[in-house]
């Protein structure tokens, strides 16, 4: 074995050993918010990152409850094993030979790690900055970030804040939201970076702008009942470039200031909480992210979402539903010959239900569906494994079963399995090279720790 390879293997083993040491460390070592409040993870999380009613209040309070920490750092890491149902794809040469879809399949991998700077700065300023090393792609950069300036108003004689209000600076639409039915912290909370996932680009509000553009917004939360937010998104350039992870040339770059809106009705009674809401945004995206004179495509998203939680000891039940509709005006792409239509639509539906016993043993069933307009250029066929079906539709449908075990509150052992009944437009032979949707079914075993 070459020296450099031996070094890499030794380093990987050292990292895994470090993870093991951290994994067996006592639970009093908690992430920075827990250190700030002195409370345990379960005060704010059903299981991280899904928030409890108190967790939502903590977040919308700008992460400012508790005592400021001298060094508000936290650490998160994941190690995983992925098994794709069929890791062999046609090599496209027409000879019938195959090649590996992923070299990381059926291997234990150090998936990645994050360092957080997270906590309160003053009674009115708080937030978090996440820096992540991607152990599969072997690069690092800024991840989700949310910084807040908040205030509270209590009417004379009121015994609780009647109004929470705040400003937020962040780099991912809905990362600032407090309910887990919005995309940034929606289910699945983590999934295999090795798996072959549908190739359809997600809607603008559904992750396409994550760590690529900047949001500056304001929100109101009235008596834990009504939430309203308006945020403007712009490109992460100039003073905001530190909020962008990829190179500008590889980013989805917005032109000007693009509005995002959010309303939600929240009700809490006994051990129950319910939210029904809607959100949406409009965004103009440069065809060429390096050229501000290039034409733009316009995306208009609207979504409805809901969440129910029943939290007692020992039983916890939670459910989320999200439907996102996107209208795509693709004049720029159409003129450039990148899309077959001048306008398309994309629809995304996600449903998820979770049960936890003693906040330790959890089971989650999720359903996801994407449908949309046929477009022979956007959803082109002819690529083994990752191409679209001959009908050129972006449709995919999947079910996800996840079992979780949290021996202590900051360690999560996961077994996740995803079944595809439709992938890139078809159930069978979707890529035209004989591959069926079910060949992408994936088993994902994951160790997830936060410290």
């Amino acid at each position, binding site marked *: 074995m070459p020296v450099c390879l031996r070094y890499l293997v030794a380093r990987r083993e050292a990292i895994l050993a470090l993870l093991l040491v951290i994994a067996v460390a006592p639970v009093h070592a908690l992430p920075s918010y827990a250190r700030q409040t002195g*409370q*345990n993870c379960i005060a704010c999380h059903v299981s991280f990152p899904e928030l409890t009613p108190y967790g939502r209040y903590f977040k919308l309070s700008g992460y400012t409850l*508790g005592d400021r920490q001298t060094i508000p750092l936290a650490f998160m890491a994941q190690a995983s094993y992925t098994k794709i149902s069929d890791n062999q794809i046609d090599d496209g040469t027409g000879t019938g030979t195959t090649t590996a879809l992923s070299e990381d399949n059926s291997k234990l991998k150090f998936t990645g790690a994050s360092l957080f700077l997270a906590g309160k700065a003053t009674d009115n300023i708080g937030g978090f900055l996440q820096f992540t090393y991607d152990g599969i792609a072997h690069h690092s950069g800024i991840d989700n970030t949310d910084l807040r300036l908040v205030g509270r108003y209590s009417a004379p004689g009121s015994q*609780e804040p009647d109004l929470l209000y705040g400003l937020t600076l962040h780099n991912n639409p809905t990362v600032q939201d407090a309910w887990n039915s919005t995309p940034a912290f929606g289910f699945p909370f983590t999934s295999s970076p090795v798996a072959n996932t549908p190739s359809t680009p997600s809607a603008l509000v559904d992750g396409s702008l994550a760590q690529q553009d900047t949001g500056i917004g304001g929100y109101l939360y009235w008596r834990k009942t009504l939430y309203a937010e308006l945020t403007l998104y712009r490109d992460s350039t100039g003073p905001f470039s530190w909020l962008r992870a990829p190179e500008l040339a590889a980013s989805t770059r917005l032109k000007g200031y693009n509005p995002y809106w959010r309303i939600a009705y929240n009700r809490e*009674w006994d051990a129950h909480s319910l939210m029904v809401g809607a959100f949406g945004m409009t965004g103009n995206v440069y065809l060429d992210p390096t050229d501000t004179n290039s034409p733009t495509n316009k995306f208009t998203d609207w979504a409805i979402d809901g969440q129910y939680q029943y939290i007692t000891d020992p039983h916890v039940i939670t459910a989320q539903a999200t439907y996102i509709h996107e209208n795509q005006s693709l004049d720029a792409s159409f003129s450039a010959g990148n899309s077959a239509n001048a306008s398309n639509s994309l629809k995304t539906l996600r449903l998820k239900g979770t049960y936890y016993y003693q906040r330790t043993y959890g089971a989650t069933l999720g359903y996801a569906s994407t449908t949309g307009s046929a477009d022979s250029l956007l959803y082109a066929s002819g690529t083994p494994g990752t191409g679209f079906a001959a009908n050129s539709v972006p449709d995919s449908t999947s079910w996800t079963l996840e079992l979780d075990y949290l021996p202590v509150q900051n360690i999560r052992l996961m077994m996740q399995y995803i079944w595809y009944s439709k992938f890139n437009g078809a159930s069978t032979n979707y890529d035209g090279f004989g591959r069926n949707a079910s060949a992408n079914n994936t088993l994902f075993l994951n160790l997830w720790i936060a410290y």
Partner: protein
Amino acid sequence: MKSNFTSRLAIFAASVGALLTVAAPGWADTTAESAQRAQKLAVEVCSSCHGPGGVSVSPTFPHLAAQNRDYLVAQLVAFREHTRGEQAAHDFMYGMARSLDDATIHALAEFFSAQKPAPARRGDASLIARGKAIFDKGDPDRNIVACSVCHGADAKGSAVFPRLASQHADYVQKQLTVIQNALRAVPAMHGIVQSLKSDEMSAVAAYVASLN
């Protein structure tokens, strides 16, 4: 048998009273400054779980409104000193209480004890009736002392004996289980609840929750 039990009960009540009088925390006058600090804490922090004025929504968090002042002081001190040992105390309250000084604790107790109590919650009538029987009379044959001996006939308690009236039934039942497992330092209760069955706890909890 009954007269023996009555004698034991009287001795028990006197002993518990004497013990708790000795154990009760000293009382400091609430100053205007500590009262102001406590009110700000109650409104901006405590209310996030215990609700406005200490009337909570979720049964995970007890009502504090109209709770007895001395009991609140004792509990906040117990959280701060980590002498309340149940998991929920560790998960939620150790951190909240860690920075509270005595004056603030006393002022918080003053604040919440002066609030209007949570409304009673009526539930299953037969369960409530069964709970009332245990609460009022106990079960002499099983050495279960009537709850009313310490908590009062109206379940409003006094001094360090907590008010139970209109408390969340789920919370009361949880605490009975916690005490049965000796996770709270209330030796007076340990013997009483030792033979209390889960369905009896449920009945007592439903009864006290139904009281104004």
